């Protein structure tokens, strides 16, 4: 007689055994399994809400891959860009470069839990999670490769994470902290509970909704397919958090959540906020970034915190204030430093400015004059007048330019530690740094390296240092492009 699924699944999920040749502490060292170190008994009730078997996993993933590849096949390669808005193409290029190889790093994180997670069911879920993350790398790489024939910069889908480009350094700093340099417990809270449960909904589901309206059905299918995987393995975070709270680690859990919320917010405003409201065509926009954040991220996060009787992060009021401004300020930074990016950047046109003002009533008053100024500079002196030439101040925690919250309201602050002065864009970044200063203190931002002579200060050399071949590969104004002279041969003596 063949056993039914539910007759054997619990036995298969829970194959923990008592080690006889080594101590449990040696099998699961605290340094990589995580703290607090608890005996296996404490983890015995680790349960995922949605259970799956390997057989079910393979069948489901095969169907999902077939759906994505079916759309890819239907849209023959020469038609991949047909009818796509030029801004949307840049959004995809931005997204691919910033996300594809993070997923591959995510596979390392899942594999760490697959070995050092403290319960068998956790390790099983993480094993499937690792397979997910490999898939999430391979699909964007495949589609990015298809797009190379249309735009060579799509090689940044793979190349970006191998460069010292400043956005990528900021992303790597975050993800190293979140999971590559984290033990199994910390990464379950930081990656699965905060990042995947909270934020990837925004990046993947919101982007999928916009892709549909932008008529980019391959991208829509890809990101929606990825998010269904994320939703499954994200559930690792809940039972890990529950076990921590049941065993006296409330303060530690609250810290990890607060820290990672702020760090994820910083990256998402830079990546998703700017892309959604300055690269996506107006016709594809449904809600504003703020509305997406409120509905898809904040409300869900509040429910999660309430489930565990945890507090809102202490910086919540600042976060709420930033929702109206931070990504708009960041867009000005992207625009004026666009030659240091691998995608083109848009100056909002009249229709977009009206849309932005409709969603953010203070937008025109706060940012209108600055964009007007850039428009006049284009008219008076061409491209050169619209580029920033001085170095921006970079935060020593998030590694992003210190441009928050808005003109006239900056939150930058410093810290003196062991003879070195550190700059932070905000109090939360400084607070995180102070909690784990030995973890962060030795890192040097791009600006630190330039000031110390470890990276070139001359812009043309800096492009090369960041992996950008100028001007062919470097970001341009989305609508105006380059001044024609920029493509002339470089004069020689």
């Amino acid at each position, binding site marked *: 007689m063949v056993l039914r699924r539910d007759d054997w699944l619990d036995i298969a999920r829970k194959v923990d055994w008592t080690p006889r040749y080594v101590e449990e502490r040696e099998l699961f060292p605290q340094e990589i399994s995580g703290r607090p170190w608890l005996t296996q008994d404490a983890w015995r009730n680790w349960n995922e809400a949605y259970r799956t078997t390997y057989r079910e996993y393979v069948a489901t993933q095969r169907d999902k891959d077939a759906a994505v590849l079916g759309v890819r096949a239907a849209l023959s390669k020469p038609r991949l860009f047909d009818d796509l808005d030029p801004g949307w193409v840049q959004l995809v290029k931005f997204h691919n470069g910033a996300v594809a190889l993070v997923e591959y790093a995510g596979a390392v994180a899942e594999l760490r839990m697959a070995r050092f997670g403290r319960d068998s069911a956790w390790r099983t879920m993480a094993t499937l999670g690792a397979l997910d993350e490999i898939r999430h790398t391979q699909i964007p790489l495949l589609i990015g490769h298809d797009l190379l024939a249309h735009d060579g910069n799509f090689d940044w889908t793979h190349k970006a994470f191998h460069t010292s480009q400043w956005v990528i350094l900021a992303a790597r700093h975050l993800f190293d902290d979140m999971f590559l340099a984290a033990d199994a417990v910390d990464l379950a809270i930081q990656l699965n509970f905060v990042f995947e449960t909270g934020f990837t909904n925004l990046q993947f589901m919101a982007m999928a909704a916009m892709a549909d309206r932008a008529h980019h059905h391959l991208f829509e299918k890809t990101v929606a397919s990825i998010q269904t995987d994320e939703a499954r393995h994200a559930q690792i975070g809940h039972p890990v958090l529950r076990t921590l709270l049941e065993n006296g680690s409330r303060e530690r859990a609250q810290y990890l959540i607060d820290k990672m919320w702020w760090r994820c917010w910083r990256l998402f405003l830079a990546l998703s906020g700017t892309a959604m409201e300055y690269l996506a065509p107006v016709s594809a926009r449904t809600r504003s970034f703020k509305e997406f954040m409120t509905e898809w991220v904040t409300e869900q996060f509040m429910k999660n915190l309430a489930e565990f009787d945890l507090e809102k992060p202490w910086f919540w009021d600042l976060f709420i204030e930033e929702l109206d401004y931070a990504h708009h*300020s960041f867009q*000005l*930074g992207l625009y*004026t430093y666009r030659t240091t990016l691998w995608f083109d950047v848009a100056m909002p046109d009249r229709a977009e400015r009206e849309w932005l003002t409709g969603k953010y009533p203070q937008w025109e008053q706060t940012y209108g004059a*600055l964009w007007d*100024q*850039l428009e006049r500079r284009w008219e008076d002196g061409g491209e050169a007048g619209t580029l*920033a*030439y*001085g*170095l*921006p*101040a970079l935060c020593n925690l998030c590694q992003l*330019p*210190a*441009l928050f919250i*808005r*003109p*006239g309201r*900056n939150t*930058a*602050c*410093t810290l003196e530690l062991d003879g*070195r*002065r*550190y*700059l932070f864009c905000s109090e939360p970044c400084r607070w995180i740094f102070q909690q784990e200063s030995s973890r962060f203190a030795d890192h040097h931002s791009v*600006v630190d390296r330039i*000031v110390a002579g470890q990276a070139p200060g001359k812009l043309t050399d800096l492009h090369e240092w960041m992996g950008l071949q100028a001007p062919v590969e470097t970001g341009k104004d989305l609508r105006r492009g380059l001044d024609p002279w920029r493509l002339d041969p470089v004069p020689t003596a």
Partner: protein
Amino acid sequence: MRVYLFGFASDDFVGRVIVTPDHRTVAQLAGQLVAWGLAPEQGGSLTVRNEAGGILDPAATIAQAGLGNGDIFKVERSR
């Protein structure tokens, strides 16, 4: 001595790195910051503050004003 500072102008959107000799005056430092910003032609008088909010004497040198490597200064423009 050459120092690097982080300047924030009230009508700009980003902090900018200023590398300068510290024998220059605070007024010259403020002028350098707004010259690199988006609206250098706007004019108006400039008030310079340190991170704690204290107003710096525009005639003082950067060193006399207590600014050193990695310090923040803020420039407010009044019309």
